[in-house]
């Protein structure tokens, strides 16, 4: 065993170096004059390209009272531009302006008017909406991309960032550049008010009718006192119902600038030719201000916080500990702790709680939640297996933490998770869209795309002593928030 182990470590280091070189050979990196960072990654096995356009714009950037507006803007980025989707751009712009006036009039009448006035304002709003929508296609961007063979068209908004993804046949690169540069240049906020209702439905589906979504919203509100990580990225029901197109457009104008974005292409690219196309379209965009409002920092937690959430569902528990984010070394150490605790069937928590004492249906841990731009939480989450209750899982979580504090981790266990980290990076290199999103993420928040592989050196250098030290410092009673979901007692 001993000999084998040494050989494995050597292979590990060699392979990580080779991987870094292989990736570097395939990446072309350019920053346009307006600050847009572009990464072209050659992967020529098939004539397709995975596109990922990520902005470091998210819910943390939202003003008070407009929670979820970043997510609403993400939905609007699918609605088209004057030249994509409009039947008559000038008439449509006038109709949309009229619709905004009708919207604000309706809102005002709802707070101060009588029933007749409200009915009249509602009718005027409905008519203005109809008129504007009659002047445009419903989903012009999807239509263009899909008919050109696009697959996986999607977007997501988190607390830290907003990503737009699609894969296209490689010969459609210019179409992509034409569409997305135009989206940044001049998105039309059409079909806004029905979309507001769509987002309201999304919130009902994910945060209200789903017990886990419900629990996590309450948990984050408890775990963070001041930092915007306390807010659900989708916004509250009241906030969503009150959005206007004008407010969404103002957020878009304030934040959607090329200097806040990275564009990654993975696939059958020809860097010289393709960069000229990207420059032709995206190069037209003006850089925005570098200004970024800094959210209020989170005060140090001084005592345990606990909250019980009542919901008609089987019980769940979530526990979070405040911790630093990257590039603080503790963040990397805790990634390995996460793997030691819950990655795979031999992980400590799975082995103990699912296999040995059988108190849990399932458990998981997460080392960076709910975002990474700012200091965040290490999470423990579990579903008890009846007749066990959440408190049984809580006790087991703490026992396992104490065991590491007391006795540390084994050398072989540490090597196992290091091997897993390397293999997962290697497997990530095989995919198109997955690689694009990992590179975008590292470029914006990980200190540079190279660190996707480069961080392996950090992980490899982490020692058993460091793990024990970080676990002792972070997993303390006064630093934790515990939320439990149970049925209301009758």
């Amino acid at each position: 065993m001993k000999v084998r182990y040494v050989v494995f470590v050597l292979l590990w280091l060699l392979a990580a170096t080779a991987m870094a070189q292989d990736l570097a050979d395939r990446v072309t990196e350019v920053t346009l004059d307006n600050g847009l960072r572009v990464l072209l990654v050659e992967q020529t096995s098939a004539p397709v390209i995975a596109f990922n356009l990520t902005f470091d714009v998210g819910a943390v950037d939202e003003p008070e009272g407009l929670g979820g507006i970043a997510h609403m803007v993400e939905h609007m980025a699918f609605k088209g531009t004057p030249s994509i989707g409009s039947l008559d751009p000038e008439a449509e712009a006038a109709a949309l302006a009229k619709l905004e006036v009708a919207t604000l009039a309706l809102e005002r009448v709802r707070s101060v008017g009588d029933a007749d006035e409200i009915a009249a304002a509602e009718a005027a709003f409905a008519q203005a909406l109809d008129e504007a929508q009659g002047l445009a296609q419903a989903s012009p961007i999807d239509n263009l991309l899909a008919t050109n063979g696009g697959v996986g068209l999607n977007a997501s908004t988190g607390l830290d960032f907003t990503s737009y993804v699609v894969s296209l046949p490689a010969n459609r690169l210019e179409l992509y550049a034409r569409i997305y540069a135009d989206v940044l240049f001049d998105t039309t906020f059409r079909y806004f008010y029905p979309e507001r209702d769509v987002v309201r439905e999304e919130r009902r589906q994910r945060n209200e009718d789903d017990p886990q979504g419900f629990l996590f919203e309450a948990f984050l509100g408890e775990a963070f006192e001041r930092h915007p990580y306390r807010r659900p990225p989708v916004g509250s029901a009241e906030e969503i119902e009150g959005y206007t197109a004008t407010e969404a457009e103002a957020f878009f104008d304030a934040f959607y600038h090329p200097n806040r974005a990275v564009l990654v292409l993975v696939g059958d690219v020809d860097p010289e030719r393709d960069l000229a196309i990207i420059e032709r379209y995206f190069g037209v965009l003006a850089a925005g201000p570098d200004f970024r409002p800094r959210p209020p920092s989170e005060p140090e937690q001084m005592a345990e916080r606990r909250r019980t959430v009542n919901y008609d569902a089987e019980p769940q528990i979530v526990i979070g500990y405040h911790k630093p984010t990257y590039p603080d070394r503790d963040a990397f150490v805790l990634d390995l702790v996460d793997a030691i605790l819950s990655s795979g069937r031999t992980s400590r928590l799975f082995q103990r709680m699912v296999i040995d004492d059988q108190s849990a249906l399932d458990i998981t841990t997460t080392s960076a939640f709910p975002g990474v731009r700012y200091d965040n939480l290490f999470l423990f989450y579990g579903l008890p297996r009846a007749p066990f209750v959440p408190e049984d899982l809580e006790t087991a979580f703490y026992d396992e933490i104490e065991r590491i504090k007391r006795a540390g981790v084994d050398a072989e266990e540490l090597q196992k998770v290091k091997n897993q980290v390397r293999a997962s990076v290697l497997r990530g290199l095989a995919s198109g869209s997955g690689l694009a999103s990992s590179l975008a993420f590292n470029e914006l928040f990980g200190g540079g795309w190279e660190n996707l592989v480069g961080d392996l050196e950090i992980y490899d250098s982490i020692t058993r002593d460091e793990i024990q030290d970080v676990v002792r410092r972070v997993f303390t009673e006064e630093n934790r928030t515990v939320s439990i979901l149970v049925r209301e007692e009758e």
Partner: protein
Amino acid sequence: MRRFLLLTLIPLATLALAQPADWPHPSELSFAPIDFSAPEPTRAELSNGVVVYLLENRSLPLISATAYVDAPAVFDPADMVGLASFTASQLREGGSGGRTPEEIDLRLEFLAASVEASANDAFSSVGFSALAENVDEVIAIWRDVLIAPDFDAERIEIERQRRIESIRRVVDDPVQIAVREFFFRLAEGHPSGFYSTEATVSAIGRNDLVDFHARYFQPGATIIAISGDFDGETMVAKLEAALGDWPAAEVERPQLPAFNPTPTPRVYYVEKDLQQSIVLVGHPSVFAYSDAYNDLSVANDILGAGGFSSRIFTEIRTRRGLAYSTGSALSQGFDYPGNFYAFSISRGEATGEVIALLIEEIRRLQDSGVSDAELERSRETIVNSAIFRDVSVAAIAARAARVELLGLPEGYYRRYLENVQGITRDEIQQVALQQLRPDELVIMVVGNAEIFDRPLSDFGEVISIELE
């Protein structure tokens, strides 16, 4: 206060900026043709009849494989629903070839490899993923998981209790309830609609797992797809060494009950205190890749499966804001028909409106057919995205294996694409008239009737389902 101040911004919004003058309109762009032929897997046969599809890809030092076995979940006896997937879980988790469960887990995780097994309505499968440098050791473990399981009694009990807990928790997820109850009603007595309960999971004993494995996991019922960083001939020799001693035996497939293509049209209602209603409407439909399927898949794409631009999505989501999730689907049936269904997850107060809209869109397809533009959009979407089937070598090899296992005719997909190119508006309307049955829908609603806008009895005879 904030909102009234914003009034002053409005004039800015009226300034419609055109795109820069030298940008072509997207419709004016032209694209160089793509010259690409997808790599073809090699087919080999081991001495005992196991078929292997191999596809080399030396770009990264990784190898992955899946053994597909003709042991689908529809083989589950009615009183032991869950048997196929329970068996698959214990192939992986119950120890094999004399190795304990712990030994297998430790070794695989130290090697950063994985071996996993699962079962669905079409087949069981046992796959692995390994770094090329230790593929021999991983193949040895995978081989034992596939053909020499030990079925550790303690692990069986752990799995049984976890399954019972999962069943208990299904009720917490309204979409899972709706889907489970809906397909049970569509299949009316056929195993493709069965679902596990505490009773069926409790009825499964260790000997049932041993029997299921012994009966259906046979060389002649197994097709392997393997791809990655290897030399084909060497890999066939490795597989022969690993699996060649697996003795071939006759497999007798169970006789499945006849599938009733016309289940009783009814409205099924599950009461749950929710903000939204989960609505599903549909009926059994055609066999996959039959002539009717080819036309119906395009009709369905235009109706609700074609994403943002499809009719149901446009009407229910984009124009009316009534749902985040809505659309339609046509599932693929091979031994029995697939299902056609439309769905929406919408606020409870709009339940009746949404059911009526889903039915209306199906009728509109029958009454007025589709436009040239819609047909063109759907055709281009299907044909131009076909290249994405050939992006991953693992997917190409896996598809070749599944095609042979399911008995699909060779070149079925090429013919499907040819058919799509030639399809006419008239054919779309005809297939909608022949294959869609808006008057015979099974309707499933999970939600809170107290807030519905219309009584469900407007849509047919209502049966309330009591959950255990």
